[in-house]
């Protein structure tokens, strides 16, 4: 019960934040992909930097555990590019499509229906191939610090520096 209420409340706050900062808009999403409007990239970078500091601080205190997905270079790369192609056509990703529907965008709803069909298509093809053609580069559930044998904070500081540099460039070029 508590988990369900938390899910709804967390989603609602996230929905308000995305709606108010306009990252749900088709124009903002395509703006980023056309490298003309970096609103969604700024949003993502600051979420990632703050999130990584919080998560690793909490991890150090033993209050959370990580939930790392497997790295399979083949499927991550090929699936990622297929996703990107669809993203540019639709103009929303799965989470922002739901939010865009909330602010009245009908094309996002049709995109969500397409997503259900895309998932069915994936499930239909899955048993024949098990995606073996693309399943190369299976490294397992690794993090960058774990893989390279370094501490996490050097990565987080690096991430923050890169994010700050990018955002400085965005602001200077009015993107």
């Amino acid at each position, binding site marked *: 019960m508590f*988990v369900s209420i*938390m899910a*709804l*409340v967390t*989603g609602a706050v*996230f*929905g308000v*934040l*995305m*709606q*108010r900062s*306009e990252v749900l808009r*088709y124009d903002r999403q*395509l703006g980023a992909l056309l490298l*003309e409007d970096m609103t969604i990239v*700024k*949003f*993502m970078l*600051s*979420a990632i*930097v703050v999130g990584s500091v919080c*998560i690793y601080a*909490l991890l150090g205190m033993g209050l959370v*555990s*990580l939930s790392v*997905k*497997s790295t*399979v270079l083949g499927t*991550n790369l090929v*699936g*990622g590019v297929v*996703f990107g*192609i*669809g*993203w*540019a*056509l639709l103009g929303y*990703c*799965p*989470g922002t499509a*739901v*939010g865009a*529907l*909330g*602010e009245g*965008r009908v094309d996002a709803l049709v995109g*969500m229906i*397409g*997503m*259900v*069909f*895309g998932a*069915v*298509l*994936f*499930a239909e093809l899955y*048993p024949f191939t098990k995606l073996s053609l*693309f399943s190369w580069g299976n490294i397992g559930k690794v993090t*960058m610090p774990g893989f390279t044998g370094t501490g996490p904070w050097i990565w987080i500081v690096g*991430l923050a520096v890169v994010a700050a540099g990018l955002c400085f460039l965005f602001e200077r070029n009015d993107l």
Partner: protein
Amino acid sequence: MYSFEKGQRPLNPYLAGAITGGLVALSVVATGKFFGASTTFARAGAALVNMISPEHGASLDYFVRYPFAVDWQLLFLVGIFVGSLLSSTVNGTFFIDVVPELWRERFGARTWLRLFTAFLGGVLVAFGARMAGGCPSGHGLSGVMQLSMSGFVSLAAFFVGGVAMARIIYGRS
């Protein structure tokens, strides 16, 4: 209907992003749940197939792994919908729209063309996300903030595919 002009100034994306980062951390502390969105569309696909033919649904390994469930992520998406609906209604930016402005400037106001493209895009989005094991929420936000390698690789691939396709659609601007 078109109350765009009444809309308030947008919230600063850095601030909204920073609060989002804290929100993920809060969610993980309270319930152990990281953000993600695309698994729910797979579970919805399982529900659809099982509605049409339960036997066929049971034969699909992927849907046996991801059966329909009202789980944390589905409720999280319901929350996003409600939050966006409330927020846009309150600040006057809610309006029913089929063809986004940028699209209309390039391809005109033909509804069927926009909806066909949106549907096709949705198919590729879900296929790609399930293949990659996540979307910009699961890999991009949750994955990268945990410094997971799959997050960095997938996020880069999302943008490579997206930037290339956006260039093809809109050309040089």
